[in-house]
Structure formats: C-alpha cells, structure tokens
C-alpha cells in the first residue's frame, strides 16, 4: 500500500506552492486561487490522518467536509469583495488598494 508519508509530502508541496502564490502574486483573484491550493493541502492532510491513524474516530473526514463547505462560502464572499474593489478603485491588485497604509 501507499505509505502515509507520500500523502503528507504531497500536501506539504501543495501548501508551499500556495504560500508562494499568496506572497508573490499581485492580483487578488490569483491570490484567492493560491489560497484554494492551500485549503486543498489541508484537506488532503485531514483525510490522510483520518484514514491511516484514527479509523474509529475519523474526525478528519468530517473536518475535510467542513473545510470544503467553508471554502465555498469564502470564495463567494471574496469574489464579491474583489468585484467591489474593482468598481471602487478600477484595479484588482492588492498593492494598489493601500488606503489603510500610512
């Protein structure tokens, strides 16, 4: 069978790529997509731990369902906020939305 470490390493790589995307990108939609990658890594981790290490509790699978639910809500809200930002500032780049910076 596949050892648990394979899944955990895959999830670590996915999460790191998400971190890179969040930090390097300027456009809010691209940052949101990188956040999605990080959430996917978290879900893989939750399920891997649930099916390998705690077969009678499997809280991880339940939590993965919650992660996916909350992520869907988050995407909807975040895209609405990005639309607002675009309408008010005519840009979707986060470094140009600097009204709070001083």
């Amino acid at each position: 069978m596949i050892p648990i470490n394979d899944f955990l390493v895959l999830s670590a790589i996915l999460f790191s790529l998400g971190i890179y995307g969040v930090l390097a990108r300027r456009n809010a939609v691209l940052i949101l997509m990188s956040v999605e990658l990080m959430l996917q890594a978290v879900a893989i981790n939750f399920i891997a731990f649930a099916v390998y290490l705690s077969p009678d509790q499997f809280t991880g699978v339940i939590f993965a369902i919650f992660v996916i639910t909350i992520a869907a809500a988050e995407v909807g809200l975040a895209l609405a906020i990005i639309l607002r930002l675009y309408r008010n500032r005519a840009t979707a780049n986060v470094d140009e939305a600097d009204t709070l910076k001083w």
Partner: protein
Amino acid sequence: MTYEEVIFFVIAVPTVGGAIGVVTARNVIHSALFLILSLLAVAGVFILLAAEFLAIVQVLIYGGAVTILVLFAMMLTRVRDLPAALDGPQRPFAALAAGVFMGVSILSVVSTEWPGETEEINVISIEQIGNQLFTTWAVPFEIASLVLMVALLGAIILARGEEGE
C-alpha cells in the same frame, strides 16, 4: 515500486504540476485552467485515500462551482486587460519563504514516528460519515449551513452595490 505507488505518482504529478502552473502562469486564464487540473487531480488523491464521497464533493464544488466563479470574477474585473506584471517585487522573498516552509514540513513529516498503522488504509464508508455527521457533528453541521447562507447573502449584497448605482 508497487502498482499503487505508480498510480499515486500518476495522480500526484498533475496535482503538483497544476499547482505550479497556477502560481507561475503568465496568463491569468491559463492559471485558472491549471487550477481546474490541480483540483480534479486532488479528487483523485481523495479516491486513493478511499474517500469517494469527498472526491465527488470535490469535483462538484471545486471542479465546477469554484472555478467557474473564479473565471467569472476574472472576466468582470478584466484582469486580462491589465498590462501590469502579475507578480510583485517581493517574488524572491516569496520563493524563499515557500522553500523554507516546504523543507521544514517535509523534514518533519519524514522524521516523525506516527502512532499506529501507516501503511494500510482503513476504508471509511459513506454510511459511517453520515452517521457521525448527523449525530456527533450535528450542531457544527447546522452552523456550517448558517455560515453558507450568511456568506451567500453577504456576497449578493456586496456585489450588487448601492441603490441607483
């Protein structure tokens, strides 16, 4: 290498490759298409973990709804017309931070002794998940549905804007 590991790599390569495409593509639409590839491959990973229910949910919600929403947002904010660079000047620091994080987390995964069986998957049936979800986790489940509704309402109100706009 067993055939299971071969299948794992067949699924892991598009997952990671798609993710690399998402964070490095020069064209935002390509980035979104890479995201679809990566998310569908993650559904394959869920199937390898014997979580078919989550794989189906993944394809429906991520492969369908989320990516369509993202593409719509790109269209509405006209990201394609923007001549500016997609990456900020902080890119080398981002690569450094991500690289350090990847190194540390992979090292800690490899060096940790997990309690219990780490070679064999315990199949968790949909029936078991449903029983747990509607008994032990009934209250969080209801709260999650409330969160979804509030987020939907909030999104509609935010995106609609003020009257007479």
